[in-house]
């Protein structure tokens, strides 16, 4: 039964555009809500945990390769500040760090041209500051804004939609929305789909990342289903967490979400991005995540267009590892400029 469904979902996009070279992945337009597919989704927790537990032992990246991978990880970081005490000064500092994440002499030693992080990620109020700062520095770096009543997503619905529009008007090119967890927990997939559709529509040309708040969804099966519904409704990225839940990004949750992305791609031909957020603070963890993406989704996804880390302290650990690679000596935090 399921195979029939799959065959009806053969990649329309592949047929239409297979002959065209794709520089950046085409945006996911979404599709009609396919409840048969959503209901057929399975996620076996124990097996998923086993895969994640063995992965770090199966893939190891050393020396030059490690340095290159860590640089790549930096280009995928949504350097984030989402605190009640954020000020324009704090945000300007963050932008400066995002534009110059690694000390120039380390970059020279590695023989790599300057890089930036993937984006900066702030609350709505800080968008203009971030946009202007980056513009002033002459760096083209997306500004992402969390939206829709972040982090709980329980403000009046019309205000949530309007918040997106306001943020886009303010210059945000990426919007990180939060879904209504209640729709997942009550199995109201149509409501989740409709909500996501509205959010996507409100984003216009800005890319939309759907934050599932996986730590509040109760089961990996729910995570898988919510991932699928959000993609069907046109999400450009699916993202684990707000960073405010008690459990944020984990490898098992990531595996479930990227397998959903893979299934969606196989069925529709559209590549949806993935963003784990919260709790990823070590360079070694970043390498494991990149290996997970490489193994389960493939090299295509190892680009900031399709993969981001939502992180604030990860960069600092990566900088220290890079200096270690260059000098052969373990580094110290204070040797690297703060954000």
């Amino acid at each position: 039964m399921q195979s029939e469904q799959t065959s009806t979902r053969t990649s329309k996009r592949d047929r239409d555009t297979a002959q065209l070279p794709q520089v950046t992945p085409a945006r996911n337009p979404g599709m009609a809500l396919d409840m048969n597919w959503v209901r057929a989704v399975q996620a076996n927790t124990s097996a998923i945990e086993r895969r994640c537990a063995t992965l770090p032992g199966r893939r190891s990246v050393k020396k030059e390769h490690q340095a290159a991978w860590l640089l790549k990880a930096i280009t995928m970081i949504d350097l984030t500040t989402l605190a009640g005490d954020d000020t324009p000064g704090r945000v300007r500092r963050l932008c400066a760090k995002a534009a110059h994440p690694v000390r120039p002499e380390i970059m020279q030693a590695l023989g790599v041209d300057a890089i930036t992080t993937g984006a900066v990620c702030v609350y709505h109020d800080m968008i203009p500051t971030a946009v202007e700062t980056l513009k002033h520095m002459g760096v083209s770096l997306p500004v992402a804004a969390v939206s829709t009543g972040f982090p709980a997503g329980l403000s009046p619905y019309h205000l949530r939609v309007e918040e997106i529009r306001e943020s886009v008007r303010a210059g945000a090119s990426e919007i990180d929305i939060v879904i209504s967890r209640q729709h997942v927990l009550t199995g109201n997939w149509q409501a989740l789909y409709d909500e996501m559709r509205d959010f996507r529509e409100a984003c216009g040309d800005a890319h939309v990342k759907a934050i599932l708040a996986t730590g509040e969804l109760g089961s990996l099966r729910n995570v898988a289903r919510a991932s699928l519904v959000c993609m069907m409704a046109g999400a450009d990225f699916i993202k684990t967490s707000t960073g405010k839940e008690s459990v944020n990004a984990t490898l098992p949750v990531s595996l479930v979400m990227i397998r959903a992305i893979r299934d969606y791609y196989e069925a529709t031909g559209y590549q949806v991005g993935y963003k784990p957020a919260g709790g990823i603070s070590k360079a070694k963890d970043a390498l494991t995540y990149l290996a997970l993406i490489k193994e389960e989704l493939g090299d295509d996804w190892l680009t900031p267009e399709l993969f981001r880390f939502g992180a604030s302290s990860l960069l600092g650990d990566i900088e220290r590892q890079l200096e270690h690679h260059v000098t052969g000596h373990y580094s110290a935090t204070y040797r690297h400029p703060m954000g």
Partner: protein
Amino acid sequence: MTVKEIFETMDYGPAPESAKEALSWIADRDGKFGLYIGGKMTAPGDLFDSKNPATGEVLAQLTQATPDDVDAAVSAARKAQRKWAALSGHERAKYLYALARLVQKHSRLFAVLETLDNGKPIRESRDIDIPLVARHFYYHAGMAQLQDAELPDREALGVCGQIIPWNFPLLMLSWKIAPAIAMGNAVVLKPAEYTSLTALLFAQICEEAGLPKGVVNIVTGDGRVGEAIVTHEEVDKIAFTGSTEVGRVIRRETAGSGKSLTLELGGKSPYIVFDDADLDSAVEGLVDAIWFNQGQVCCAGSRLIVQEGIADRFYAKLRARMDKLRMGDPLDKSIDVGAVVDPVQHKRITELVDAGAGDGELYQAPCPIPTAGCFYPPTLITGLSPASSLMQEEIFGPVLAATTFRTPAEAVEIANNTRYGLAATVWSENVNLTLDIAPKLASGVVWVNGTNMFDAAAGFGGVRESGFGREGGWEGLQAYTKPRGAVKALKPIAAFPAPKEAKVDALDRTAKFYIGGKQARPDGGYSQAVWSKQGDLLGHVGVANRKDIRNAVEAAHTAAGWSKTTGHLRAQILYYIGENLSARSGEFAARIDAMIGGRNGAKEVDAAISRLFTYAAWADKYDGAAKPVPMRGVALAMHEPVGVIGGFCPDEAPLLGLVSMMAPSIAMGNRVVLAASEPFPLAATDFYQVLDTSDVPAGVVNIVTGNHAELAAPLAGHLGVDAVWTQSGADISAIVEGESAGNLKRTWVNNAKARDWFGPAGEGREFLAHATEVKTIWVPYGE
């Protein structure tokens, strides 16, 4: 490559584990190894090369042990064993604990040496093999500690000869040595000639642990060394893990020798995927099932059986996963598939695939194949049928054969359509379905939604031609202990001869066989008279031949439904047999007295009624167990019937002996074919009338009469019989064990030793253990 280039390609690059320490360990011993006998390494003898299969380079030279060396090792073990067994359990526990700790302390050296020697990826030796080795010694340190309190009625067997394969060299060593020495045995172990190095390193840690000299002896070399151990008169037990072919040879060679034997042999384990499974996880499970250790795993899930509706989608996912597998230098930390152990194996895999792949569609992982060394790519062949050679023959390589099914019943049918029965895997999110399927699979281990899970607490071992005996858990200790106490020789009893002048009752009474719930005449048309001591003609009984055995086994097979009945139902029937026997107790007592002479008949009938009650009691009380394995989940040890059991009843107690063999068997859900007491057969033939009136379904109990020595070969050789027991006065143990090699059925023979059928030795757990298989069902859970 520069950082800048790698930044674009995002390749893994090399991540080699250093071989330096392991190579210098070998170099420190001049690259030449002797044998470990009586606590000392002998001087190197006749040497052969041990190679690294990933490069073909010679790692070290090992000694081919001579028969004299084996003799010396067995003598050293014999000399050490009594003292070792006399130590308290706690004293032995301390040594096992030290071994566990030492394995952990030298864990990286063991892991690297194993990978160099065997070719398996360092990830596996480091993360799986060596931790399991340590776990096995810890677990059995505990068994030694508890032995005095928990196993007071059992004692060590003596000297154990242990022969292990090359696929998990140190792990198999630990599975063999840990339980053996924990229980007070001494061992002579032969590692496989391809992979002896970690065993020799283990010899070193035995010294570091201060293990008394001679408790562990290690002799290296090829099959000739194994043969010398197997045929050595002073060896009390053989434990073998390896091919079914060699297992069969060992079964024949040890037949009638009185040696205990456990065999852990080949497999062609099914891997069943239902349409409601988490398909991505089931695909990943296959990586652990068939591409783990290059597929050189006896319990590898090598037969993929997928529900038809999802097969194409599943295969597509599987092929995509295969594309990601990395094959190469086993010491590289990012390698999934290493080298197969030897060019001989590589050739065998290639030939089997080349010969059989034409039946289906072949897909091989596109990973580059290293030019040097023995590498075979991960392989999938879809579209096969059960008749394809690749679905039947054990390949012992990274080759997965696939077919489809329509219904759960058909999945079971295909899964069980094999001579083997080691392990099985079932994937479904439906707990009803998985727990329904698991007991129906002919295998010693079932993994639900996972695969290749092992632990010292959980029994491992097979049914059918995958061997017999369990390793791990309490059940594993059966293989290294025996009931305490001395046994006496069994005196043969001849039937009373025909008198010169017969005293004949006018009315002729002819006892027949009891087959399929009906009385049956002997196929051959021969009968023989049964005389009393005084020369009375007590009756005639049929003389069974091989066709009668065939018919009886056939009838037993048709009664397969008995194995699915509840213990409660079987208990009621056993009580009912007891009740009906009691109603005719006078008649049975008189019959026994008439046949044997004397006045013990009434006592024997009472004992038989009591025995029926004993097993009626046990029918619903021989509990399984939930094993505390180190994961979130449960490993259930379920007692299942063996199947069809053939039995040669004791001569001396014509009714009680029959009941003592029948009752535990049928209480546990087996069907039986019993050859009645040869000199005194009429109690058994009278007894079928009791069965007839006791609601025993047709075919559950089948009784024949005749010459045990003549029936031994056809019954023990019957490929549809799952176990044969003999408690016969005829010395047929050698025939039974030898003939059993055909399908490697379980045997339980008396070796011409007596048993007190009236005492505690005549009933209880020992019988129940022989009447059941332990199936370990792993059920990881979590939402």
